[in-house]
């Protein structure tokens, strides 16, 4: 005779492969359970951060390259759609694809000269590039509108249905959710592909990976290209949602925050990265009650989480290699 607990365990086991779908159903139902437009707006923004974190995770989590200028990838995507839309009236959907490829191209262009650098030096080049992009956007007035940015960017419309996304947050929330789902689907595939395994080998030991026939340059460039692609998607989505872009949105703090999301959630673990992104983007809203102490508590919670879960909330992937224990390197 089976006990109740055993039966429950069996049900859970049967359900396990469908867990992502259960999460998706939950995510879809949120706007129906909580119709507060402000909450939905926060969730939609959190969704854009999830996309960004998934993109950065390819570079930092999979390939093991520290990137401190990811805001630039995001900015390139956002400005790509904004400029296309304002100058040539290109609608959102082709703009989305184009921005993603622009982000990808930017990643490759940045990485090509810098790829030979190791570890922290590569990180500082990405940091410098991030600052250069932001300052350039701030000062190339005729093209980018300088500090005021670009205004009047078209919101997406649904073709054949005459539905304009407008300024409501709800459609953006669903669109972001759809994009995240597609990105996760491909990430899972890539994780277990030849490329994903090449990244893993590279991350653990570049020298040995090279001996095993992996071309490190090619693998690293692919990581930047793919990370840039996802950041480009997020960028155009951001530009379309806001209806405007300005350089202020793409500062170093943003790069740092996205990195914190990836590390806090668990490097290389898709669900961890999503958890980190959602937590860090909605935590400041929860702390609003503390008013001026908000950012103080935010910093404190980042420290505490890291002290108690150094591998990240859902991370357990890393036992050795570039980002693992420093003792292991010696």
């Amino acid at each position, binding site marked *: 005779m089976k006990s109740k607990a055993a039966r429950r365990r069996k049900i859970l086991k049967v359900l396990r492969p469908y867990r992502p779908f259960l999460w998706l159903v939950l995510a879809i139902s949120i706007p129906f359970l909580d119709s507060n437009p402000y909450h939905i707006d926060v969730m939609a923004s959190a969704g854009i951060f999830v996309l960004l974190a998934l993109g950065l995770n390819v570079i930092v989590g999979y390939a093991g390259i520290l990137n401190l200028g990811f805001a630039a990838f995001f900015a390139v995507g956002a400005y790509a759609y904004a400029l296309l839309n304002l100058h040539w009236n290109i609608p959102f959907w082709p703009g989305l694809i184009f921005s993603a490829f622009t982000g990808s191209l930017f990643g490759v262009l940045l990485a090509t000269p810098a790829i030979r*650098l190791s570890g922290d030096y590569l990180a500082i080049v990405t940091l*410098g590039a991030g600052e250069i992009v932001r300052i350039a956007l701030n000062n190339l007035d005729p093209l980018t509108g300088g500090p005021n940015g670009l205004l009047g960017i078209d919101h997406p419309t649904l073709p054949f249905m005459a539905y304009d996304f407008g300024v409501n947050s709800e459609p953006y929330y669903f669109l972001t959710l759809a994009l995240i789902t597609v990105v996760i689907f491909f990430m899972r595939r890539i994780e277990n592909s030849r490329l994903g395994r090449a990244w893993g080998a590279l991350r653990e030991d570049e020298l040995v990976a090279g001996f095993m026939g992996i071309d490190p340059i090619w693998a690293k460039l692919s990581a930047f290209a793919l990370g840039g692609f996802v950041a480009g998607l997020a960028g155009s989505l951001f530009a379309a949602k806001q209806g405007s872009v300005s350089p202020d949105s793409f500062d170093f703090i943003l790069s740092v925050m996205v990195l914190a999301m990836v590390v806090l959630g668990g490097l290389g673990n898709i669900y961890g990265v999503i958890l980190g992104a959602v937590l860090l983007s909605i935590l400041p809203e929860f702390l609003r009650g503390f008013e001026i102490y908000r950012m103080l508590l935010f*910093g404190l919670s980042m420290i505490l989480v890291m*002290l108690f879960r150094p591998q*990240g909330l859902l991370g357990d992937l890393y036992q050795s290699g570039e980002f693992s224990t420093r003792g292991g390197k010696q």
Partner: protein
Amino acid sequence: MSALDIFFQQIINGLTLGIIYAMIALGYTMVYGIAQLINFAHGEIFMVGAYLGLTIYLAIQGFAFGPAGLVILVPLIFIFTMLGCSALGALVEQTAYRPLHNAPRLAPLITAIGVSFLLQNAVMLLYGPQDKYFPNLIPIHRFSFGAVTFTNLQMIIAAAALILMGLLNLVIMHTRTGKAMRALAEDRQAAYLMGIPVNRVITQTFVIGSAMAGAGGLMFGMYYNTINFHDGYLAGLKAFTAAVLGGIGNIPGALIGGILIGVLEGLGAGYLSSEWKNVFAFFILILILLFRPQGLLGTRVVKKL
């Protein structure tokens, strides 16, 4: 002003700024060399140094009498600021980094960012979000050669920095602590096996680096006369850049990198617009790293199997 005058004037301004960057860069480079850790909260220690200096000045200005008192007053402010920042640096190391010694490499980076938020906001809550006026600690005299001017304050900053760096060099090259630090930088495992108290030496490194950053913060306040709780971020970023430029982990490199970044920034501000000066500094950094990935004075690390 002739073109040559502008050039020399910007060099002088850039040198002063560069010396301040170098003071911060020393802490970055020492901590990196010894603990392989990018201490992102270091810029905030510098910022706290500026506020601490101001607070100490306001507290003890009543006791000083006349211009003669300045000779005692200013060094006293320096000493107390440096002591305060050392204590803060040690506290940060003990609470936010030490528990993560054996954690994945990016974990301390995230706690550093957390500490950074924490310190910035603590200072904002204590002193308010607006710019704070930093009074002149000493009467300012201007010296001019033709159209090029410099002040006694710039000379004092340079002299103080040189003295502090000389002391640092003494500590590192001629004391037991310094020897332990060099051993740790070379091979941590071996140093540990030779009986060097690794944790204690790392704390000492933070103490010394934070003292230098605190002194740098005080110089920054004296030089610009306004301070803000946001100042640590950009100065820290530039100083980190300077440390990498000189060859991270290399102490003379930090000095050269800091001065180079400062001078480049000065020249950028003089010839390009002040908005583009940061692009200029970062652009040079990227160029140098592409052609000399180990930094100007860094040695190439040969990867061992």
